């Protein structure tokens, strides 16, 4: 069994084991063990990647290729580069943290963990695939459990939110499918057979007209998941209704699929289309950056604030990807990782606060620093990380994006960059607003004075997310170099087409 | 002569047909239909299909119409006025029918039919031979099928008409 396929097999085995488990205790132990194995594999993969990279210069490592649907030349083709390795690591950490955070799921625990791990399977599969069709299949596997997770274990108007989220994402995948098929049917533009393999398609000169037509479809198809303005509205409602671990996984990992897909497929395979359309999508994504930040300014529900902040941060990812520039692309990858840890941490903390105080309305909270110091301090740290404080992952990601985007010669791109940069100010405002209202000040509610202490599994979950975030921020070089090396062939591939 | 007869018949049939579908009294409607059916029989006579005309008169004008009249009498008061459709619906339907008619006629008139001049008279024996023949062009099988069908319909009609209630509990209605 090769090192990558295990990423799909282990969660599936965990799911099977879960099916035969009884009760919460068994379910969570099994999920925890499964997720631990995943994390171990991800770390192992990281080292294996470094060893392999030293001797192997091809774009993708550990590649495997098996035909599974001959008529359409669909392969189970897998392989990773530095980017997918990093994202796999992110996924495994967030999944494990998510399991810890859902330690106390009382309601249908077995089914909950099964859905969670099915979702994880989809995400893992998506990150390792290099075949468009296989990728799409895994993408759908990842998106579907969301409906159940929110619809069953959610809170508030959960059916509505689940429906909205699923419908919008499904709508997007419909558009995406058209784009993917468009790419597929143009993959023999230089002669040869039709193929879904990304690496092979990238060598083909897809006609300009086709690129122009299919780029927006592919881009929007993925970008909806990446909360592109104005298709972001599923995100606030969805996150608000979702249970904690699901919010974490969704914002932390699933939304990254959008950016990753844009990078791997839309930008890489359709570069001419990307250039043709970049002005339009840059306007959208830069709007999203500012708009999300301003949107967060006025909200009072913690999850809404965080959801809008995600719109802003992930807008930055799309914005960077559209710049077609190595540094900016690297920044986009780093931002994906950084936002993954950060937002998962945020949602975990929000879940803990909500679990204790039973409200997410910041105007009803106050003085939490006094009553739950640990969670509050971590919230402050997460907040500071989110506003791009040096020493945390967000800073290096944003700086890469800004420096990269600013390398663009044209005035339009520069102005868009400056507009995006201005979001850091607004971000500071809304983060500090939350900190000021919620954590500081006097304790507003007598009941808050006697709240349960943090538990070991909550601390573990938090630390799992916090440590990589600080690690990335303090010593970014190795990670940044790893992703930068992997971005290299892609940007080169794109430039070859111009 | 025949031409005039045809036109008269056609006029009667059309007027009667229109009257039949627009009359607000059930029984009149049926009687107008009777005129149309008789007109059809007249057409059959005109083209020398006497047997057919006779069948038309007996089965249709004689049988079916009587059946319908009975049912009308069973379920209606004589003077009862029927409820009519909304004007808009009538207009739309009329329009659609007129357009359809236009399409039909334009197709018919633009088609060049290969008419064979003849004045052949068909007698009953020909029809009987055709219907009961086993050979090529024989219609024994459909004939039998129709017979069975008629039988089945008859039994069905009796069973339905016998009057067991469709549903036992009336409160669902």
């Amino acid at each position, binding site marked *: 069994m090769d090192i990558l396929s295990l990423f799909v097999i282990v969660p599936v085995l965990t799911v099977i084991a879960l099916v035969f488990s009884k009760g919460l205790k068994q379910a969570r132990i099994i999920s925890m063990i499964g997720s631990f194995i995943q994390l171990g594999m991800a770390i192992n993969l990281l080292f294996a990647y470094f060893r392999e990279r030293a001797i192997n210069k091809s774009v993708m490592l550990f590649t495997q290729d098996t035909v599974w649907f001959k008529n359409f030349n669909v392969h189970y083709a897998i392989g990773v580069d530095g980017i997918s390795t990093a994202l796999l690591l992110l996924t495994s950490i967030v999944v494990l943290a998510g399991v810890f955070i859902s330690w106390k799921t009382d309601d249908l625990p077995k089914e909950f963990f099964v859905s969670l791990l099915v979702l994880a399977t989809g995400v893992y599969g998506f990150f390792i695939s290099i075949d468009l069709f296989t990728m799409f299949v895994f993408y759908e596997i990842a998106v579907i459990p969301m409906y159940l997770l929110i619809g069953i274990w959610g809170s508030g108007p959960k059916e509505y939110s689940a429906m909205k989220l699923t419908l919008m994402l499904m709508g997007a995948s419909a558009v995406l499918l058209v784009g993917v098929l468009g790419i597929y049917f143009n993959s023999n533009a230089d002669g040869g057979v039709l193929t879904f393999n990304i690496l092979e398609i990238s060598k083909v000169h897809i006609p300009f007209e086709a690129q122009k037509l299919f780029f927006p479809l592919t881009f929007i198809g993925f970008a909806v998941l990446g909360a592109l303005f104005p298709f972001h509205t599923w995100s606030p409602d969805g996150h608000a209704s979702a249970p904690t671990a699901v919010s974490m996984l969704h914002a932390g990992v699933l939304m990254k699929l959008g950016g990753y897909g844009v990078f791997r497929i839309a930008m890489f395979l359709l570069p001419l289309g990307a250039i043709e359309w970049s002005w339009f999508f840059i306007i959208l994504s830069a709007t999203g950056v500012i708009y999300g930040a301003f949107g967060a300014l006025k909200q009072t529900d913690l999850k809404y604030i965080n959801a809008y902040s995600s719109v802003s941060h992930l807008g930055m990812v799309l914005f960077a990807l559209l710049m077609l520039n190595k540094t900016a692309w690297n920044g986009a990858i780093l931002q994906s990782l950084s936002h993954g840890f950060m937002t998962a941490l945020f949602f975990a903390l929000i879940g803990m606060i909500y679990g204790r105080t039973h409200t997410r309305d910041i105007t009803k909270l106050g003085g939490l620093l006094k009553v739950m110091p640990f969670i509050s301090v971590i919230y402050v740290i997460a907040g500071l990380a989110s506003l791009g404080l040096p020493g945390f992952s967000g800073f290096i990601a944003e700086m890469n994006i800004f420096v990269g985007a600013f390398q663009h010669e044209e005035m339009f791109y520069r102005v868009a960059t400056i507009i995006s940069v201005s979001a850091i100010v607004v971000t500071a405002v809304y983060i500090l607003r939350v900190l000021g209202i919620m954590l500081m000040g006097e304790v507003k509610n007598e009941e808050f004075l006697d709240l349960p202490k943090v538990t070991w599994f909550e601390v573990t979950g938090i630390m799992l997310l916090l440590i990589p975030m600080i690690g990335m921020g303090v010593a970014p070089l190795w990670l940044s170099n790893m992703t930068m090396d992997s971005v290299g062939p892609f940007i080169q591939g794109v430039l070859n087409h111009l | 002569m025949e031409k005039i007869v045809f036109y008269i018949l056609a006029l009667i049939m059309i007027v009667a047909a229109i009257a039949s579908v627009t009359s607000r009294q059930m029984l009149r409607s049926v009687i107008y239909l009777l005129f149309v059916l008789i007109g059809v029989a007249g057409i059959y006579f005109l083209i020398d299909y006497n047997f057919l005309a006779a069948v*038309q008169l007996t089965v249709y004008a004689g049988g079916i119409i009587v059946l319908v009249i009975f049912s009308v009498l069973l379920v209606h008061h004589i003077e009862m006025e029927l409820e009519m459709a909304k004007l808009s619906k009538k207009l739309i339907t009329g329009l659609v029918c007129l357009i359809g008619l236009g399409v039909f006629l334009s197709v018919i008139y633009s088609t060049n039919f290969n008419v064979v001049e003849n004045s052949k008279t068909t007698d009953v024996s020909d029809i009987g031979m055709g219907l009961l023949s086993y050979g090529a062009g024989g219609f024994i099988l459909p004939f039998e099928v129709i017979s069975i069908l008629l039988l089945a319909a008859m039994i069905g*009609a009796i069973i339905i008409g016998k009057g067991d209630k469709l549903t036992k509990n009336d409160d669902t209605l």
Partner: protein
Amino acid sequence: MIAGISIYEIFTLTSILFFIGIYGFITRKNLISILISLELILNASAINFVIINKYLYPDVLQGVFFSIFIIAVAAAETALAVAIIINLYRQISSVEVKDTEIMKY
């Protein structure tokens, strides 16, 4: 053959009858009236069979046979329809279409 009358005129007549039947079928609100309209349609097409047989293929009798079949089927259909209508009337004391819509549930 009717002397002096072309096939076109007869077709015109039958087409008119046919569409009057359709008009009636759609607009009438009473089951028996619908049945009557149906008879109109059937007759119009029966005439067509016969006419085509007579004018275009005088040597065979298929059209006639079909007419006979149509008459037979019409008779059967009417018998059944009348039976249903009467039964319905017993059940709900009405033969208006709108009252029978209950059946679709």
